[in-house]
């Protein structure tokens, strides 16, 4: 980038600005990389009642560490190979139709084909948080236990065909919806060449960060604006690492900035319950960044009570603090209990899934 090696012509002010931008870009790339590299452990067991005759019973469980940004239909070839080679006998393997396979959690929740795997996992975590702790401690394995059914899929509830093609169409739909939320149109996505659009999906399929972000950086907001970012480690840590060159935003411009979108694509998931979606402006009316706390307090005030104002200052207490309020819940984003000071715009640029959406799963502090 031109900010390197051309300092001779720069005024000190400009140089400071680009240093700060560089740190910001570094953090953006880092969090995008962490989000991309996040994986979850799955334990997949064929429903014992459906195991075909002559199956190898001792092996009917398959373990996989699956990328959060991936989808169940993309894991199917690997899962099928395992069961066909090691569990089912040849005749059974020939007769089984994998377009009739479908998944449930061990608790009996149907898994949708078009939900990112990380969302399925987090949604399950928050569902456990509402169960009495006695049952939770016994069902507290790190892996998400799934039951694989081999026949009679409840298609009316699964909604989509279990194919990678159907999943890709749903993914592109989500990407466009996110684009529309951000900018009021889908020009950024529709402006991509067909090859680039396919490249996004290929990047997910192959779990290739560089392939995905080569295209995604053209449609995802940048964080290179002058505003403070959250959360930010001290700048000195930036020099200790080299950032992946492929993740460099192509010159952050104010127009594409995370704080200039109309709204941030956010969905709020409650345990076993409704999914809420609304317009989430990056800044509040007073111009301050819209924080996760503000968002949660305005949507779920019973779980995240508003903070009362601080009492008036007195001589004995010149800097009074507001009385503490206890939140009854916590937000999980990409598996992280997210700090409530996080800014929604920053979350949209750095912790969104590959489909452009920030999924916030709300767990109960029971």
């Amino acid at each position, binding site marked *: 980038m031109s900010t390197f090696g051309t300092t001779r012509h720069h005024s000190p002010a400009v140089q400071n600005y680009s240093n700060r931008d560089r740190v910001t870009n570094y953090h953006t790339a880092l*969090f995008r990389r*962490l*989000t991309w*590299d*996040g*994986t*979850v*452990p799955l334990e997949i067991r064929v429903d014992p009642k459906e195991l075909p005759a002559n199956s190898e019973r001792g092996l009917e469980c398959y373990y996989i560490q699956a990328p*959060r940004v991936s989808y169940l239909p993309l894991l199917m070839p690997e899962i099928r190979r395992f069961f066909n080679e090691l569990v089912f006998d040849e005749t059974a393997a020939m007769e089984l139709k994998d377009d009739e396979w479908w998944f449930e959690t061990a608790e009996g929740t149907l898994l*949708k084909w078009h939900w990112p795997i990380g969302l399925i996992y987090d949604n399950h*975590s928050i569902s*456990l948080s*509402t169960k009495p*702790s006695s049952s939770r401690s016994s069902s*507290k*394995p*790190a*892996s998400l236990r799934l039951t694989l059914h081999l026949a009679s899929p409840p298609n009316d509830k699964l*909604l*989509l065909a279990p194919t990678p093609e159907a999943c890709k*169409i*749903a993914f*592109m*739909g*989500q990407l*466009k*919806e996110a*684009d*529309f*939320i951000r900018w009021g*149109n*889908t020009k950024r996505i*529709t402006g991509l060449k067909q090859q680039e659009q396919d490249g996004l999906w290929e990047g997910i399929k192959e779990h290739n960060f560089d392939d995905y972000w080569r295209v995604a950086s053209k449609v995802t907001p940048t964080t290179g604006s002058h505003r403070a970012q959250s959360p930010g*480690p001290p700048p000195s840590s930036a020099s200790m690492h080299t950032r992946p060159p492929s993740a460099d935003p192509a010159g952050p411009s104010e127009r594409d900035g995370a704080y200039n979108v109309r*709204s941030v694509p956010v*969905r709020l998931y*409650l*345990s076993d*319950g*409704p*999914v*809420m*979606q*609304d*317009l989430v402006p990056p800044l509040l009316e007073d111009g301050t960044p819209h924080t996760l706390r503000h968002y949660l307090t305005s949507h*779920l005030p*019973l*779980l995240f009570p508003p903070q009362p104002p601080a009492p008036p200052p007195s001589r004995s207490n010149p800097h009074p603090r507001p009385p503490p309020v*206890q939140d*009854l*819940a*916590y937000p999980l984003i*990409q*598996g*992280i*209990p997210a700090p409530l000071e996080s800014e929604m715009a920053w979350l949209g640029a750095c912790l969104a899934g590959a489909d452009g959406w920030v999924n916030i799963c709300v*767990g*109960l*502090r*029971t």
Partner: protein
Amino acid sequence: MALTNHHDGPDRSLPTWVTQDTSETAEEALKALQTYKKKDGEKVIVRFKAVGNAPIMKQNFFKITSSNRFQAVIQFLRKELGYKGNEPLHTYINLAFSPAPDDTVANLFKSFQTDNHLIVNYSTTAAWG
């Protein structure tokens, strides 16, 4: 950095503010959750607009209960048009994108309404898919 363990399982140690527990808090939290799970019977206006060669509807405004999923809107539209399950019908919001079938009408309305209508375009061929 504390955030690097984001791929761990649910048994990772959460910050203390997450795990502090009292049974009273738990009860209150569960009660709050139930409040948010209640569906209200609110209805919103959905306006269907044909695209391309798709048949035009005489009556194209409908009041639809907003807790319905978009899938229900698609099924309703198919019924109105007399379309069978295997005939292709593509649906879009604001001539721009196809929503997820499990998203609710309420959510789509809140995010994409135009003059108090949710505009659903339908087409027999893929248009903005």
